[in-house]
C-alpha cells in the first residue's frame, strides 16, 4: 500500500517520464513517416542498382538491435563534431531505426494497391506526383494503418531502451522512483500500467481507421 502512496508522491516524475516518452514517439513519427514514404517511393521508382543498394541498407538497419544503434549515435555523433543532449540523440536514433521499418511497411502497401487503379490514373494522364498524392497515398494511409499502429507500439517499447543513454522517459522515471523510495513494486507496476494505456489508446485509434476503411471501401 505504502508503495502506491510513494508513487503518487512522485507523480511529477512519472508525468515528466510520460511527457518525454510521448514527445519522443510523436517527434519520431512526424519525422519518420514522411521519410518512410520517401524511402518507399525511392524503392519503387529508383533505377535498379540504386534500388538494390538502398534495399540492402534498409535490411541492414533492420538487423541492428535498437539499443546498439542508440549507443552508436550517442557516442558517434560527438566524434563527427555534433554534440547532442540525450533526448536529441534518442530522437535521432529512434527516427533512423523506425524509418527503416516504415519504408518496408509502405513499400508492401504500395505493392498491395490494385494495378488497375494505377493504370487507370495513368490513362487519365495524371502526373507522377498527382498519382501518388491522389491515388496511392490515400489508399496506403488506410490499408497500412493497422501495421503502422503495431509499429508505433514497437516504437514506444523501443523508446524505453533510451533510459540507458540517460533519457528521462517513463522507464527511467520508474527506475528513479523505485531506487529513491526503496519501493520496488508500485513504481514499475505504474509504468507498466501507463504503457498499457498508451498501447490501448493506439489500438483504439487503429480500430477507428479500420471502421473508416470499411465504410469507404467496403
Amino acid at each position: 500500500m505504502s508503495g502506491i502512496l510513494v508513487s503518487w508522491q512522485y507523480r511529477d516524475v512519472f508525468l515528466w517520464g510520460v511527457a518525454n516518452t510521448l514527445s519522443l514517439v510523436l517527434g519520431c513519427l512526424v519525422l519518420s513517416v514522411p521519410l518512410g514514404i520517401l524511402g518507399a517511393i525511392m524503392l519503387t521508382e529508383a533505377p535498379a542498382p540504386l534500388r538494390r543498394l538502398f534495399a540492402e541498407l534498409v535490411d541492414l538497419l533492420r538487423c541492428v538491435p535498437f539499443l546498439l544503434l542508440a549507443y552508436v549515435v550517442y557516442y558517434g555523433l560527438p566524434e563527427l563534431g555534433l554534440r547532442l543532449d540525450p533526448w536529441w540523440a534518442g530522437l535521432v536514433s529512434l527516427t533512423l531505426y523506425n524509418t527503416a521499418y516504415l519504408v518496408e511497411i509502405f513499400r508492401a502497401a504500395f505493392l498491395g494497391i490494385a494495378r488497375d487503379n494505377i493504370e487507370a490514373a495513368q490513362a487519365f494522364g495524371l502526373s507522377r506526383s498527382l498519382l501518388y498524392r491522389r491515388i496511392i497515398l490515400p489508399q496506403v494511409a488506410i490499408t497500412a494503418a493497422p501495421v503502422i499502429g503495431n509499429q508505433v507500439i514497437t516504437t514506444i517499447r523501443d523508446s524505453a531502451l533510451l533510459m540507458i543513454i540517460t533519457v528521462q522517459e517513463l522507464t527511467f522515471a520508474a527506475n528513479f522512483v523505485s531506487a529513491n523510495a526503496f519501493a520496488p513494486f508500485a513504481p514499475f507496476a505504474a509504468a507498466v500500467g501507463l504503457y498499457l494505456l498508451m498501447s490501448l489508446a493506439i489500438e483504439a485509434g487503429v480500430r477507428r481507421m479500420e471502421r473508416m476503411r470499411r465504410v469507404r471501401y467496403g
Partner: protein
Amino acid sequence: MTWPAIRTILDGALVTAALSAISILLSLPMGLLLALLRWRRIPVIEGLLAAFVTIVRATPFVTLVLFVYFVMPAIGLELDPVPAAILALTANTAAFSSEIWRAALQAFPRDQREAAIAFGMTDTKVFTRIVFPQIWRASLGPLVSEVTILLKCTPAVAVIGVVEITRAASRVGAETYEPLPPFLLATLIYTVLIAVLVRSQRVIERRLARRMGLTPL
C-alpha cells in the same frame, strides 16, 4: 582496441548466444502451451492468459527486465541477474509466440480434428499425430522472426548487470575512455548474428513452400 578488449566482447557474445538459446528452448514450447490452454477456452484461465499476453506485449522489454529483477525479490523470489534475464526473455517470447501458435491453431481445419476423433483417437494423440505436425510448419517462418526479435531484445538485459555483448562493450568503453569502437564492434557482431537468422528464415520459408506447397506467411 587491444586484443584483451576484443576477447572481452567475444566472451560477451558467448553469453548472449547461451542466453538466447536457453530462452528459445524454454519459450517456444511455453508459447505453444499457452496457446493450447487458450484454445481449450477454460473460463478463468482464458481471461488470465489473455491479460498476461496483453500486458507483456504492451510493456517495453527493459521495463519487463527491471520488473523481474527488482520486483520478484519483493514476493520472495530472489534471482541472480542471469536467471532473471532468462525469465524475462522467456516470458516475453512466450507471450509473443503464443499469438503465433494461436493463429495457426485457429486456422487449423476443424474437419480433420473431427475425423480423428471419429476414428477414436485420444486428445493427446490427435495433437501429436494430426495437429502438431501441421502447425509447426505453418508457424515456422513467424517463429524464426520472433527468435530474431528475441536476439534483438537481449542487449536490454545489460541493465541488470548481465555481462553479454553490450555490457562487455560498455565496460571496455569505460576502461579505454573510447566508447565508440567497442560499440561498433558489438553492433557488427549482432548484425552478423541477426542477418544470418533472417537469411535462414528466408531459406526455410522457401523450402517449406516448395515441399509442402505452403505459401510463406
